[in-house]
């Protein structure tokens, strides 16, 4: 820093599992962290998951302590429902402008009692539930949200749409509802930045041959997670959306637009093989007399205890793996017919399924382009943040002081995202210590 000390304070963008881990690793080493999350609460995609592979730990159970720890950490300043709007300066002294979206709720007054959500008359499709469940117009992502403060969605709020209702305002015991709220800006100064903006899923609307978005019993993997989840719309029961019946034949399709340079993305999405095996396993645990099928091209179970997990799915739960892609899915006679191929027997395969689950490709967060511009970073050809060098510098970027963690750099599973977040945190900590921050050195 040209002989000058930088500010030993970090900005972490994105509060999914990678961002939270990076923030905690930095904060637990004694430094302040500004954590910015676009959603109303933290936890990211992991909070949407039911159980996690390969141990089948419940995601809520292992994650909520983390979200609580982040929410209560004395050295983490949390801005949710906010985005990084402008960044100036350089490593050691970045001036960051954060845009806080209007929640239409004064969070300082709100106690999170939940009365407004209970009484709100407007229901709409819930993004958190992947569209297979409903939420109110005033909502928190989940009952365990951190912070447990609701926001009003103007697109579904009756007052915003039609100019009357204001039921929440009347009922709120602390008078926290504020329909006049506008977006606000705050400025923060930090010395280093960790980008942990995660991933999104390939849009269902563009999966014509699979009937996604058209046939109700064709779901994405994330929607199926919500069906499996005890806190999901069916309280963990596997009921198919069209008629609420328990599906007895379930087909899982991998590589939906992954490894598909012609019509999707050229890369492998890395996590689908394992979560699909988990889906099939959990399905069998819930519906023991059902049959699960998985269409795959290559089974990629290359993590610790992953291969063993797949073997159990095949051998103990009788999940039938079929090596071949599915070309078409269509509705017929109350069934969802799947046309696939078994390249190993050399026969075409048709399955009249009750439910079809698509492992859609992971794509970069839709905001990555804007954010890359704000940060002065490069994206790779696929739209993920470009690391400085693929082998030895996977957490570093071309801009000193800005680091990458988790799926923002490329798709990765939870342990890999956590390890990389720790790695990014270490880079930040090393900088801060060099600038003379932190506690005593040496023995």
């Amino acid at each position, binding site marked *: 820093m040209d002989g000058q000390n930088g500010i030993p304070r970090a900005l972490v963008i994105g509060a999914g599992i990678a961002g939270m881990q990076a923030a905690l690793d930095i904060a637990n080493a004694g430094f302040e962290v500004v954590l910015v999350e676009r959603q109303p609460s933290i936890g990211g995609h992991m909070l949407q998951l039911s159980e996690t592979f390969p141990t089948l730990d419940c995601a809520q159970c292992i994650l909520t302590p983390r979200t609580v720890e982040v929410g209560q950490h004395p050295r983490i300043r949390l801005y949710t429902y906010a985005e990084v709007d402008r960044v100036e300066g350089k490593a050691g002294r970045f001036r960051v402008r954060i845009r806080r979206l209007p929640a239409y709720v004064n969070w300082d007054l709100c106690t999170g009692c939940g009365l407004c959500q209970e009484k709100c008359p407007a229901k709409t499709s819930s993004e958190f539930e992947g569209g297979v469940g409903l939420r109110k117009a005033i909502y928190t992502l989940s009952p365990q949200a951190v912070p447990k403060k609701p926001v009003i969605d103007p697109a579904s709020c009756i007052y915003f749409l039609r100019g009357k209702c204001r039921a929440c305002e009347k009922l709120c015991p602390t008078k926290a509802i504020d329909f006049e709220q506008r977006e606000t800006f705050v400025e923060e100064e930090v010395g280093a930045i960790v980008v942990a903006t995660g991933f999104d899923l390939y849009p269902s609307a563009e999966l014509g*041959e699979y009937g996604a978005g058209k046939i109700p019993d064709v779901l994405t993997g994330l929607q199926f997670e919500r069906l499996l989840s005890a806190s999901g719309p069916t309280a963990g029961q596997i009921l198919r959306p069209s008629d609420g019946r328990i599906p007895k034949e379930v087909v899982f399709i991998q590589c939906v637009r992954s490894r598909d340079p012609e019509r999707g993305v050229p890369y492998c999405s890395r996590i689908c093989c394992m979560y699909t095996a988990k889906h099939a396993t959990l399905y069998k645990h819930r519906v023991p007399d059902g049959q699960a099928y998985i269409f795959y091209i290559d089974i990629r179970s290359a993590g610790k205890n992953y291969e063993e997990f797949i073997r159990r799915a095949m051998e103990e739960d009788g999940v039938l793996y079929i090596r071949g892609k599915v070309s078409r899915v269509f509705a017929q006679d109350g069934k969802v*017919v799947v046309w696939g191929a078994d390249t190993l027997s050399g026969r075409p395969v048709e399955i009249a399924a009750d439910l079809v689950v698509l492992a859609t490709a992971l794509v970069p967060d839709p905001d990555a382009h804007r954010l890359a511009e704000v940060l002065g970073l490069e994206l790779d050809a696929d739209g993920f943040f470009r690391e400085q060098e693929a082998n030895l510098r996977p957490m570093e970027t071309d801009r000193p002081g800005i680091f990458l963690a988790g799926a923002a750099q490329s798709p990765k599973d939870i342990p890999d995202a956590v390890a990389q977040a720790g790695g990014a945190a270490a880079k930040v900590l090393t900088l801060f210590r060099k600038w003379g921050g932190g506690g005593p050195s040496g023995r």
Partner: protein
Amino acid sequence: MVVPYFPGCTLSTKAQGMDRSARASLRALGLELQELPEWNCCGAAFPLTTDDLRLAGAVRNLVQTAALGQDRLLVLCSTCYNVTKRANRVMGEDGARRERINFFIEADYDGRVEVVHLLDFLRDEIGFEMLREKVVRPLEGLRLAAYYGCYLLRPAEEIALDDPENPHLFEDFLSALGVEPVEYPHRGECCGSYLALGAPEVALESSYRILSTARASGAEAIVTSCPLCHYNLDRPQQEMAVRYGGFHPLPVFYITQILGVALGLDTGDFGFEKHYVDPRPLLERIPVAAAIY
């Protein structure tokens, strides 16, 4: 308005009903079809090898169209439409191939003619809303299944008529006629095409799948714009009735026939008597338009 028109071999012979119903219908809509004076066969199958000269026939028709001073060509038969449109693209895009073909047929054509099918022609030139107003015999209560087949949809980037996985143009057209279009899974699957010649058993199974799922989805008849699809779907139904238990015959209309009926035209020369499954009983259900009779 005069519209240059390429009927193709089959419409001039074995599918004259399609040709006649087309001419009559478009006349009723105030359009005169002008048959290309010296048209020739389009080639019937887009060449899949690097042998460009097989495109010459289709290109010749386009050259004629351009020579008439016209900038578009209406092609009704799906097969001809597919071949001609793709040949036109080659002429419009590929320098070396264009040069070779031009040299061979002694022309200087650059793909300037737009190849249109009845569906996009009606949508863009007349408008489905306007068409709806012209309908004097609304086909209300008639549940028809649009059959796209291959040639109206694929290859998607070359044909670009509709979304190849979830098309709706044909259904939109039928709706304008008052029809209740029936969606069914196999409207874009292949009927078997020329396998009728080389592997009739295989073609039969393909068309059976299309017919049976259309019926299961509630269709009372199928509508197509391809004489070969028509042949594959219509003719073997007797055989299907023998082979597959529970099979019920399903009439197959040409798109132009159904248009003519809705426009209240005299269907006497529409060629219904040549269909294997007689579609006329179904039409008897539709009230005859007062304006005509």
